[in-house]
């Protein structure tokens, strides 16, 4: 069984925001809601400044699921953390619990009323009929059920953002790191967020990328 994960290769991300745009366009995400965003770390430090594309990491032990008072979250067989907007009350607890700042709340109307939570679905829609209009309006496109991977990763121009089965993408990433090391470049083996989202790699876990770091 595939376990869906994201990896952002900080050595490759050029901060083009193509992933952000692809996501916004694919799901017709409203103004003010960003399911994915590019953040800069070590800003201004010459040689150390990196950009990383961040969204919901679909954690193994998702804190949002643990704190939700109405239990609106569920996890698919592929490990994708989704939620029901019919059940969500927009309390915002998940927003405080999430280490990646993934939950977003649309504020519409005169008084900026906080709406139902919205977040990255790994392009897997939600609890509506796969590919239906109702699903699209609430959760966006369901690309997984179309046999496609998330739009953000597939649109990434430098392939910095990898999405798919954890084993497959970690193999791709490991291969890159090895190649960079072979050519005397910065290895860039640190995988942003993996330790936080999926736990530290076990000794016998061959699939975990090298140098996993939270």
């Amino acid at each position, binding site marked *: *069984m*595939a376990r869906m994960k994201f990896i952002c290769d900080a050595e490759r991300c050029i901060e083009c925001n193509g992933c952000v745009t692809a996501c916004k366009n694919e799901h017709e995400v409203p103004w003010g809601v960003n399911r994915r965003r590019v953040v800069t770390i070590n800003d201004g430090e010459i040689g150390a400044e990196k950009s990383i594309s961040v969204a919901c990491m679909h954690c193994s032990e998702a804190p949002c699921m643990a704190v939700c008072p*109405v*239990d*609106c*979250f*569920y996890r*698919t*067989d*592929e490990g994708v953390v*989704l*939620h*029901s907007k*019919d*059940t969500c009350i927009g309390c915002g607890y998940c927003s405080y619990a999430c280490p990646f700042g993934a939950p977003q709340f649309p504020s519409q109307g005169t008084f900026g009323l906080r709406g139902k939570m919205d977040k990255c679905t790994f392009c*897997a*829609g*939600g*609890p509506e*009929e*796969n*590919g*239906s209009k109702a699903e699209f309006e609430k959760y966006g496109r*369901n690309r*997984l*059920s*179309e*046999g*496609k*991977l998330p739009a953000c*990763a*597939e649109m*990434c121009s430098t*392939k910095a953002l*990898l*999405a*798919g*089965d954890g084993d*497959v*993408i970690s193999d*791709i990433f490991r*291969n*890159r790191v090895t*190649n960079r090391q072979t050519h005397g470049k910065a290895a860039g083996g640190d995988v942003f967020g993996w330790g936080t989202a999926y736990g530290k790699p076990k000794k016998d876990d061959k699939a975990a990328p090298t140098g996993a770091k939270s």
Partner: protein
Amino acid sequence: MRVTKAIISLSFIFGLVACSENSQALKASKSDVAAYQGAKNGFVDKNWTPGDKTSWEKQLRVRAQIQDEYTRSK
């Protein structure tokens, strides 16, 4: 007479039980259909068979490999 009263009172009790407070237990999230069942739209990739889990997993694995230019350039 007593038996009739008892039956009536019992039916009242059962009736009241039926009208009792709704369960406030957290509702289970709505069940979602697995992604390998396929989408009901015209955007489904033609290289796999909706409903066949093995073919869906293979399709995603192949698709994920497109992200690896080291294999693409070979």
